[in-house]
């Protein structure tokens, strides 16, 4: 009985009591407050560079650097020298460059947001009128009592899509109601060569530090679940953050268009 009390009832009561703090707000307002906590004044950085070490799912440790500008321009870089790989997503287009090899990404892949910084994920649309927010109540993640918000942004131009399937976006955010920091996000990603196949990606954020007012998680664990297979994990450890250094638009131009 004592074990039942400790393992089940106490955490449940704790979750309900603590998480109701955020629940008092309307879901849309709560999400706006979360964005304000992560990005001061809900103002996103003009540009941002994060760098550190990536341990990919195969266990290889290598340096990474991610450069962003606005909400829809991201340059991902890993490795150095001959093993340098860069992938750019820019205003709905995307491509990967490995050495001299240039590979275009599908539109729905290129439209992915940067998921390892919550304020640049779907939370960045907190003030967008068409954003649908659902408060799904308290959830316990490990020992943290969180509150789950599901954010859904319908595709503004569904009729323009190639096969008539809208690119609606949806992400679950698990938020610590005490700190208003995002503890976990969960979303589905379509496979590059099949829109039918969705990989669930769970991103766990920790070691938050404040850099020029922005709450940045310095440790990020991504767990990917592809169909029925064993989940795989990647670990980002951020070591350096640069905010608003004046990254030029040409950083995100395709190789042939760069001056």
């Amino acid at each position: 009985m004592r074990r039942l009390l400790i393992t089940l009832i106490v955490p449940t009561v704790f979750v309900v009591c603590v998480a109701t703090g955020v629940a008092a707000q309307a879901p849309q307002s709560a999400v706006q407050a979360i964005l304000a906590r992560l990005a001061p004044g809900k103002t996103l950085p003009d540009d941002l560079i994060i760098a550190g070490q990536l341990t990919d799912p195969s266990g290889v440790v290598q340096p990474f650097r991610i450069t962003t500008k606005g909400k829809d321009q991201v340059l991902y870089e890993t490795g150095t020298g001959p093993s340098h790989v860069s992938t750019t997503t820019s205003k709905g287009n995307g491509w990967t460059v490995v050495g001299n090899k240039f590979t275009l990404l599908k539109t729905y892949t290129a439209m992915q947001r940067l998921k390892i910084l919550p304020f640049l994920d779907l939370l960045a649309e907190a003030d967008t009128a068409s954003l649908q927010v659902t408060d799904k109540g308290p959830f316990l993640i490990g020992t943290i009592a969180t509150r789950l918000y599901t954010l859904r942004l319908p595709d503004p131009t569904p009729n323009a899509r190639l096969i008539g399937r809208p690119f609606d976006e949806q992400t679950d955010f698990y938020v610590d109601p005490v700190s208003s920091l995002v503890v976990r996000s969960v979303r589905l990603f379509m496979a590059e060569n099949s829109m039918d196949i969705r990989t669930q990606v769970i991103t766990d954020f920790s070691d938050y530090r404040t850099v020029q007012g922005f709450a940045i998680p310095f440790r990020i664990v991504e767990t990917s679940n592809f169909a029925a297979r064993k989940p795989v994990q990647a670990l980002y450890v951020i070591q350096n953050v640069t905010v608003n250094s004046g990254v030029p638009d040409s950083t995100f131009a395709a190789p042939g268009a760069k001056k």
Partner: protein
Amino acid sequence: MKTSVLMSIILAAFVPLWASAQTDYTAPDGGEKPLGTYFKTDIDSVSLTNGNLHVSIPLFSLAGRELPVNVQFDYDSQSYELRQTFMGTYWVHGYESMLWRKSSNLQQGTLQLSQANLLPCPPVGQCTSTWNVQITWAAPAGNRHTWGAFVTQSCSSMSPSQYYPYYICNNPSPASITDNLSLSDAEGYGLLTGSGGGWLQTPKLITFPDGSLWGNGFLTTPNGNQIQMNPNTQSITNSGTQLADFLPAADTLGRPISYSISSDSSTETVTLHDSQNQSQVYTINWTTVLGTNINEPTVFDK
């Protein structure tokens, strides 16, 4: 202004006919082709071209007016696909098995459009492009038929698109490069397309060497006998790809062929009535079928 985005056309590289999604299907030729070379026994054959092992296990054959309903359980050893998901700094890879599937007269397979723009248009002004249109049908039992054509499309003007390096073709003529095609391959299989709305929306018909017609959910013989697919009979792989392995709702004598699938898609049940009006029940339990839930080591790279 009626516009067409060239980017969209290029990205239409692989559009299945029946499945609503954009899915690549690149496995080698499966099944058996009429003029193929095989090492063959009663139920299986090995392609001497690509090494594919094809096994066909008959489940039932329901005789009807001219057109019997045949259902087999088919296997093709090379019918699996590499699926990759972009994670930003790395990719997650996994293999999707389509090795085993049920197979009937109405197994649709997939019809894919792939083409290249031979004469890219400049970013402004009037433009005429010639497209090399290639359409491939992964036919019942897994074999392929490919049709090709050069199609000229003109644009009254071009406009810059926000999607570098693509441009917008204004007032394209024809509206879609797949409108009103009438193509035939070396084995006598034909493809006919209608018009309106682009590749996905336009009606598409496949003609067989014996004069039969397959399209709009019907298989029609030259004598007019028809069986119609039941769209609810389609299987889906454990990764989510629709296999387009349809069964008919009834045979040509009007005898119903009822079908059900469990909520987790693991068990399919087909019930039919024989000539004595006795019901016969066939059940496929996919959880017992090797290869439908493969869990081979996953590979990761950039």
